[in-house]
């Protein structure tokens, strides 16, 4: 059933108006030798049967695991009002707001989202979002390359999420941009080595805070050094922790990006997620994607429009700042409603509850013989520990007991086969942490 309302009589009446005999006459332009060689698709199902099929498939996923797996993607609490509001058809089934008179709901929501992002990161301007945190890093790099004129080198810290660095490698493979990776030092950004890598060909330096190992650092001096060498400072952050951490604005970053999955988006096996991009006034014209601005209508009434569209593909085509078209509209709306329901205090509490659990877990785990923290630097809700055995083996051993131990750092870093990344959020109970610690202790 294709959700079409046409009765046989109506179809005939329409064909009569068009002046053809059959529906097939409308496809006469497609010659016989271009028709499908096969079209072996299953029979359609009723809605009832379809839902039953997917209930069965979804049931093949386990939802009872207790998971300490993070790696940049976290299971935070999602207030129930979000689904209800975002599910409204007026938001759900509208197009990109090209006609502002009939899209003020979407436009004002994006404007408020931009405001929330700028306030959280203490940056001047934000766009309506890009696909995810990794793509945001790539777009930020391209902003810096364009702003840096002939500069082609991007210096990226190795402790930036390896999932994102892999994406960056893919996207830059066929373009004239050199990616220079500066090795981490025991899980921390090597600030001196990063500084040394910034030369007259460098367009930007890219760091992450907290980094992949969960550690928190100050990049103010690094960005000052970058500016002195006419390079841009790009920082990738974690929105929940940003409620308490020193901001990109305070550190003097030129572009701040984030994966905002932690703001109201379920993990959903990888997406859709939400890439956030914000920048200083100086960089606004390099921002990719949709940007909403406030203005007035002919009667002087306040309204909102897509602005600075001359950067975009539908106007500039080959000369656009990016090819991005649709962004993550509903995900941005979810994030905005999430931040509004939690407010500043709620977001800070979420960060603190997560930190408190992670530190409790770290204290317990390091009491086990042979287990130690990778370094002494501050961390928030995720941290790296060195185990006496291979981290993959530890993960495998606990998987059968219903616990996801964490992420094995050896997947992305040489010489770290025994290093495990463990994450907590406000949704972990102290009891779960206790059981987990005992189980892990039991196999070491």
């Amino acid at each position, binding site marked *: 059933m*294709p959700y079409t309302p*046409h009765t046989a009589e109506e*179809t005939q009446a329409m*064909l009569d*108006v068009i002046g053809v005999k059959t529906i097939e006459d*409308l*496809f*006469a*332009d497609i010659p016989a030798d*271009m028709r499908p060689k096969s*079209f072996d*698709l*299953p029979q*359609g*199902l009723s809605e009832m049967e379809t839902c039953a099929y*997917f*209930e069965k498939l*979804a049931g093949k996923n386990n939802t009872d695991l207790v998971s300490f797996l993070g790696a940049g993607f976290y299971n935070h609490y999602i207030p129930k*009002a979000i689904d209800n509001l975002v599910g409204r058809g007026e938001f759900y*089934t*509208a*197009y*990109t*707001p090209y*006609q502002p*008179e009939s899209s003020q709901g979407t436009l*004002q*929501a994006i*404007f408020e989202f931009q*405001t929330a992002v700028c306030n*959280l990161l203490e940056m001047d301007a934000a766009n309506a*979002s890009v696909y995810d945190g990794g793509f945001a890093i790539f777009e930020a790099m391209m902003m810096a390359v364009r702003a840096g004129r002939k500069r082609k080198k991007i210096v990226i810290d190795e402790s930036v999420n390896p*999932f994102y660095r892999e*994406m960056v490698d*893919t996207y830059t493979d066929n*373009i*004239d941009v050199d990616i220079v990776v500066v090795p981490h030092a025991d899980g921390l950004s090597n600030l001196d080595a990063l500084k040394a890598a910034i030369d007259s060909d460098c367009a930007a330096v890219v760091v992450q805070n907290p980094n992949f190992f969960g550690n928190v650092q100050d990049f103010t001096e690094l960005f000052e050094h970058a500016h002195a060498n006419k390079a841009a400072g790009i920082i990738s952050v974690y929105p929940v922790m940003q409620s*308490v951490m*020193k901001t990109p604005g305070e550190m003097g970053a030129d572009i701040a990006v984030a994966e905002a999955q932690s703001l109201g988006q379920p*993990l*959903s096996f*990888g*997406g*859709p997620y939400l890439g956030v991009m914000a920048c200083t006034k100086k960089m606004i014209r390099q921002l990719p994607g949709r940007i909403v*601005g*406030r*203005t007035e*209508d002919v009667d002087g009434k306040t309204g909102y*429009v897509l602005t600075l569209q001359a950067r975009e593909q539908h106007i500039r085509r080959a000369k656009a700042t990016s090819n991005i*078209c649709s962004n993550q509209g*509903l995900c941005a709306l979810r994030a905005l409603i999430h931040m*509004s329901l*939690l407010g*500043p*205090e709620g977001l*800070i*509490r979420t960060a603190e509850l997560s*930190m*408190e659990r992670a530190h409790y877990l770290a204290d317990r785990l390091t009491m086990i013989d042979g287990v130690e923290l990778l370094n002494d630097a501050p961390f928030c809700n995720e941290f790296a520990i060195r185990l006496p055995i291979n981290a993959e083996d530890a993960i495998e051993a606990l998987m059968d007991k219903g616990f*996801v131990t964490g992420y094995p750092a050896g997947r992305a870093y040489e010489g770290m086969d025994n290093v495990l990344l463990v994450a907590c959020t406000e949704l972990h109970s102290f009891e779960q942490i206790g059981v987990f610690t005992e189980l892990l202790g039991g196999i070491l």
Partner: protein
Amino acid sequence: MKTLFAQSVPGRTACLPPKPEERAERFLPKELMRAKRPVLPEVSELDVVRHFTRLSTLNYSVDSNFYPLGSCTMKYNPKYTEYVASLPGYTTPHPALPQLPKGAQFTQGSLQTMYEAEEMLCELTGMEAFTSQPMAGANGELTGALLIAAYHKHKGNKKTKIICPDAAHGTNPASAVLAGYEVVNIESKDGIVDPEALEAVLDDSVAAVMMTCPNTLGLFESHLPTIVEKLRRVDALLYYDGANFNAIMGKMRIGDVGFDVVHLNVHKTLATPHGGGGPGAGPVGVSERLVPFLPTHRPAKAEDGTYYLDTDLPLSIGHVSPFYGSFAVMLKAYAYMVLLGGEGLTQATERAVLNANYMRKRLENHLYIPYNRICMHEFVASASKLQDECGVRALDLAKGLLEKGHHAPTIYFPLIVKECLMFEPTETESKETLDGFLDDLIDLIETAKKDPEALFSAPHNTPVRRLDETKAAREMVLTDEV
């Protein structure tokens, strides 16, 4: 309407988590903490609910209005797909779980879903394999261009250009440039790609040609076989922009007619909601010669019937998204395909084309239609003659339609038709809806001739009237400073 920031009252709260025992100062030294709390709305839950409910009512949407936006395929989005995507079995799993030792066994449902969805897309399009990783149509284009680059690099071909017809979507040239190519535009003849114009720019440096079929004028590219043959001679690949795929389901398969790469916009053809600007998904299908280059971590089926992620892909271009793309969006698209089946999908295409031709025919005596012949799922009209007659432009007609409660068609695209209005009714609209819209549009055209001023000042009854875009660009107020 006041922003939520402007409604903020210090100390007011909504969904507050329990009070932590320790504050952040215990874990972070002062120099690593922010100096001031973030300025976010301090409001009650009712404030939030009322604010966003009211905002939503300021939008036109498919659920509330006819939305004949050309090239956007604003069809009805069936509600059960939302239910399917919200099943906890689907929303819960962490994407890195199946990559861990013994982790795949706990995510068999998601892996099977991805595998089956890609299989079904292959049969629907005639492509050899699909990847669900690209996160939107434009991201699919970029992925496609990267696959093309990887293919040529592997073969040792020196390619620097991608050819785009003048009727192409703006994303095509933008994606080609982002992937490192120089773009060559070619002019259309009689509304479709001209093989001679193509021949004139075709040489060994051409990596690919990007085509939309039917094209953005709603016309079938009838020189396709000739074009395929020409490209083979210089080992150039043929790219299919799937934006208009709703016009050919069951009538033609992209793989059968010689395309090498295709992206589909699932929020168009496969009925996932557009959401006021995403999230989308842009699955990419390839012909046999491009399969080895697909993004890594491909869902696969083992001999024992279990599902896993294949990472043994030495020629893969790598990752285009952190994991497997917009999983939940692809899930909705797959649920739509399962319900419709082959017959239903074909019928969707047939009725989309029926509706477009019906509209075209009813409009032909009222508005100039530059390529007035049987069209596919959309067609293009022009207000240029009306403008000559009374000064009323495509923009004015669009605003007049808004006033009458319809969404406007796409205007000023494609760029090759002056004062362009592009109509795409989709298959889910009834004859009464189309008639109601057409009556209003014809009425507007008549009004324009008698009283053009009425259209210049439209709309009058929308939440806001025509907005000052110059002021917005000049003043750049991009955040609410309360």
